[in-house]
């Protein structure tokens, strides 16, 4: 018998492991080569139960729709009327989340202020203090009160329209801010009282209060300093939304901000972003339940953030009981982040438009997450602000379209009854029935 006559033995097809996939193998090699965890920006990238897993039912014989182009659907939101003598009034239920000068360029902060102001909503400072550009271009500015207290001072506190006590954020509940040396320019260093070029790792706990009883006293101090005028928010990451919301209310908050794990960050460890915290969809009903149990729903306002991308997401968050939403990543994309027009530059950085997340390195081709003056010049704050205002307008129109279809004359009249879920997981998390059934796992079968 010759070799030619040997029967061909079938070979197994090369098969990659689902557990050890290409990304996992690459990360093991990277870790072995460097000895340090991966740091990046943005929020959780893994597939999570999200607003796409919910659908609105719309109107029918038992529910009357509103005329899309004729009948009014109000979007105004008042925040902070619980204790503040000067609550803030937003034209739309969408706000801009806190992002620091330092993590973003001054031009990007200015653009956020311009866009928010054109749209009639608020923007928010971040872990680095308030810049003159930001205050000047933001009609309504929320001033964050963070563990680091970088740049914190009573004059800026009094210039703010509201104060947000930041306990945590969705990308890293339990973690502090991070700004690596590449982005600590002279101006950033001076604002934070830090040496230029160091890796700045903010504290994860506030330096002068611990727990809800202290927080109550801290909030009272902030009110005393600002003449009881400013609404005071408490922002928490999506760790224990029921208890964190309840304790924020007990501590005297006017507004509670709950940020799910899809919420972005300027920089933190990949392992933190992907493995700590709860999805936004799971956070909302828990926070709303806490407010309802305290009879404070709609009295203390709830702002939800983490993965809001379009008007449907806005409408679904409101239907689940939020008073407003906050956007960060989507706002940066509207400014120009990850735009394919910079693809050549992204490739030089070893990435591609849509995947760029090394915001901590300060080499952003779009000129947004950088302190490099040449790169920052690429962003025109006037044009970028206009793009953000356009985007906010579209979100609002989309939200109104859905609300009218459900027969609601105010976006706050959307309710869980308007929703069904496409998956068992989403039904359980959002506490709405699985489509075609009356089944809310964990609730209707209790």
């Amino acid at each position: 018998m010759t070799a030619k006559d040997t029967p061909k033995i079938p070979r197994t097809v090369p098969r990659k492991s689902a557990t050890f996939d290409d990304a996992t193998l690459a990360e093991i090699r990277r870790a072995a080569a460097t000895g340090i965890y991966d740091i990046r920006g943005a929020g959780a990238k893994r597939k999570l139960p999200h607003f796409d897993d919910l659908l609105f039912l719309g109107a029918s014989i038992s529910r009357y729709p509103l005329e899309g182009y004729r009948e009014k659907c109000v979007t105004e939101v008042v925040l902070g009327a619980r204790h503040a003598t000067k609550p803030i009034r937003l034209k739309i239920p969408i706000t801009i989340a806190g992002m620091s000068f330092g993590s973003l360029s001054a031009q990007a902060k200015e653009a956020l202020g311009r866009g928010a102001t054109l749209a009639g909503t608020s923007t928010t400072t971040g872990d680095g203090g308030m810049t003159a550009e930001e205050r000047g271009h933001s009609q309504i500015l929320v001033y964050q009160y963070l563990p680091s207290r970088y740049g914190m001072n009573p004059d800026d506190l009094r210039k703010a329209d509201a104060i947000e006590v930041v306990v945590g954020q969705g990308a890293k509940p339990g973690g502090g801010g991070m700004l690596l040396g590449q982005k600590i320019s002279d101006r950033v260093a001076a604002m934070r009282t830090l040496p230029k070029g160091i890796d700045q790792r903010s504290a994860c706990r506030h330096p002068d209060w611990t727990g809800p009883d202290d927080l109550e006293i801290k909030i009272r101090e902030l009110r005393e300093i600002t003449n009881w005028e400013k609404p005071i928010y408490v922002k928490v990451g999506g760790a224990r939304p029921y208890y964190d919301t309840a304790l924020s209310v007990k501590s005297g908050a006017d507004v509670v901000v709950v940020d799910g794990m899809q919420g972005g960050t300027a920089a933190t460890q990949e392992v933190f972003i992907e493995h700590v915290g709860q999805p936004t969809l799971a956070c909302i009903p828990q926070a709303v339940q806490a407010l309802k149990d305290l009879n404070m729903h709609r009295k203390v306002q709830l702002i939800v953030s983490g993965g809001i991308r379009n008007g449907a997401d806005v409408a679904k968050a409101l239907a689940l009981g939020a008073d407003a939403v906050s956007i960060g990543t989507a706002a940066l994309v509207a400014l120009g982040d990850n735009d394919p027009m910079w693809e050549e530059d992204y490739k030089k950085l070893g990435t591609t438009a849509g995947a760029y997340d090394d915001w901590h390195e300060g080499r952003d081709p779009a000129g947004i997450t950088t302190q490099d003056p040449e790169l920052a010049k690429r962003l025109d704050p006037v044009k970028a602000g206009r793009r953000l205002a356009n985007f906010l307008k579209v979100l609002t129109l989309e939200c109104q379209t859905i609300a009218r279809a459900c027969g609601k004359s105010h976006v706050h009249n959307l309710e869980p009854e308007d929703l069904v879920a496409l998956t068992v997981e989403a039904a359980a998390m959002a506490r709405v029935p699985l489509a075609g059934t009356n089944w809310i796992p964990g609730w209707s079968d209790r």
Partner: protein
Amino acid sequence: MGSGEWRMGKASHLMVFHALHSPFATPDFGFAMTMTMTKTANALTLDVQTDGLRAINQRLQNVPKGSNETHWTIANPAGEHALAAGLQSPIRVEIMGTAGYYCAGMNKEATVIVHGNVSTGVAENMMSGYVRVKGNASQSAGATAHGGLLVIEGDAAARCGISMKGVDIVVGGSVGHMSAFMAQAGALVVLGDAGDALGDSLYEAKLFVRGTVKSLGADCIEKEMRPEHLELLTQLLAKAEMTADPHSFRRYGSARKLYNFSIDNADAY
């Protein structure tokens, strides 16, 4: 305390969810009609028990620059929180007893003298001015303060000078653990002893301790006391009206090894 009463005494640290009975009902701003301000030969006197915190703070915060109402005393503080917080003019306020949390918080320009002890966060985030505590201070004294001088004649508890950003702090007694944690700028002078982990993750603040240091925190080391440091220390002791030989102190500062992350230093944390 009824639900319509807004004042929160220091004893009301109850972890309950009685939101409707919150002590945060909006205060009545009609204080101007009812304040019992009295004037002694040298100072105007306000009374916490009869005037209430809101009225007192509002009165003190709104003293216009150039006013001759520059000397105030606060009677019956009874541990009230946020007393003399947010002051913003060069007035002198004397608190005649023990104050609660955040006394003289975010102070600018004012002189605040406490004839008693203070609770957590005295002079937190102070920008400028002078705060002196005749007794002891609880945790986080001078936390995150950017400027001014804080003097504590007695002891200060844990985290004294945490995240300080330019304030000078002089403590006549000892300080507790984690003092000057992440301290960025300014000077902490301790005439007594320092507890565990002094100066942990220190940035550029200067630390001077006369007594023993139980342990140094990550990246904090003893440094040479050079003539410029002795001069600074001499000035601070004089400003604080404290008597001590500057040569009897030791200086501590940042080794600056953790300023930029290196995997070889990971065990330091």
